[in-house]
């Protein structure tokens, strides 16, 4: 093709391209699904995960005699001390008035630790991508469900040592996971020394 033909072809190309900007009617009505999503009750993102962790306090917890609690720095991070529930903590079984039988409670030390860790993590999560945030929340939900399941089993068999150990360890996992996510995100995004 000679130069002139090239230019004509090119101009034709651009003219045809512009015709492709005509609106196109979708094959099906896409509105109903959109409406479903936007009409769903709005949960502000922050409170969504606050709720998950607020449930931590409400869920049936373990009582640890505070004499048995030991404070240990979380590994690799010397700046904050987070109480770890010592696996050998004496568990106190407290009958609760009413018809629901026994309940296990985690002492105020755990509650404090939980609050500190979840506050830090809240801030980090806000800056993660939606996918990463979703991943973390889904996994914390997984831990919560595991805790519920163990507690339900404990309700039937309160003296079961395996269940008690699993419960303590799963609570510890939850704190540890939150702390780890906080730390990884912090190192990746916020540390000013790197």
């Amino acid at each position, binding site marked *: 093709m000679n130069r002139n033909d090239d230019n004509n072809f090119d101009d034709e190309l651009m003219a045809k391209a512009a015709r492709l900007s005509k609106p196109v009617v979708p094959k099906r009505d896409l509105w109903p699904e959109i409406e479903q999503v936007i009409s769903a009750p709005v949960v502000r993102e922050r409170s969504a995960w606050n709720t998950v962790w607020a449930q931590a306090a409400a869920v049936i917890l373990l009582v640890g005699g505070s004499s048995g609690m030991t404070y240990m720095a979380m*590994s*690799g991070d010397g700046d904050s001390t987070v109480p770890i529930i010592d696996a050998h903590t004496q568990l106190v079984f407290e009958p609760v008035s009413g018809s629901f039988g026994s309940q296990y409670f985690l002492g105020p030390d755990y509650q404090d630790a939980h609050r500190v860790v979840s506050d830090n993590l809240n801030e980090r999560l806000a800056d*993660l*991508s939606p*996918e*990463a945030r979703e*991943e*973390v929340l*889904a*996994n914390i939900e*997984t*831990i919560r469900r*595991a805790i519920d*399941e*163990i507690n339900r*089993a404990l309700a*039937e*068999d309160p003296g*079961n040592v*395996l*269940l008690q*150990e*699993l419960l303590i*360890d*799963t609570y510890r*996992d939850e704190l*540890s*996971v939150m702390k*780890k*996510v906080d*730390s*990884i*995100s912090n*190192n*990746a*995004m916020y*540390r000013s020394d*790197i």
Partner: protein
Amino acid sequence: MKFISMALIGSLGVAPAFADDVNEIMDADSDGTVTVSNVSGSVEVQGWSRSQVEVTGELGSRVEELIFERDDDEILIKVKVPRNSNGGISSDLSISVPVGSSLQVHTVSADITVSDVEGEQELESVSGDIETEAHASDIELGSVSGDVEVQGDNQSIRSRLNTVSGDIESDSLAGEINAESVSGDLSAINGSFERAMLNTVNGEIVYRAALLDGGRMDVETVNGSVDIEYDGDVSARFDIETFNGSIRNCFGPDSVRTSRYAPGRELKFTEGDGSGRVTINTLNGSVRLCKN
């Protein structure tokens, strides 16, 4: 010439004409520390015999600058990006470091690949995958949703491998291993351990390695299955308990019900001279215990 029809998925288009190429080198201690920070893209680190650190690669079009500085025995490599950037920050870095260096890498979504680094390694990412070789020194690998893969060379070190949902795979590590995940699967293949701690909430745990005499192994999962096949003989007191899971073992006695009235099975026995200690606890996960 017909151009190739590119699928939408996986097509990266043409490299933007304005991405910056990086090619810098500086002297470094032969056993110093190298710290790398890159938000997205990739980070590749390889050890070499020179006492220098070299960085090559491509920076995203919106990257503010590449920081590459030395402070005595520490080298810092950081991809600096604008605070609320949406696009154009993905950068691919290829870094050569002295083989004896200690290495710290932090990324958000960039994948991390490391080879031939003999010093300590701390590799962390939010969603990037992490792949490394372990040699003479301790390693600590953590990702939230990325996978973690490590190839050891049977030298005794301490390994900490942590994810929230990514899978963890190790081959030929030795010494101590502490691997934890919430929903990722763990597998430790080959190698031999004095201490192994393997913990998941929902992920599967697979162990196909040796446990040294006097060694200690703690396995705990809520819903994951546990599949252990010891490499060679094992000498330990075993204490295995599950609430709802089954226990299948190839050696030693059969498991028994823990109570006549409640669910739960346990298996407690001694194998060999009983010098080691193995505990396995699960809520619903099944346990398989064998040796080859």
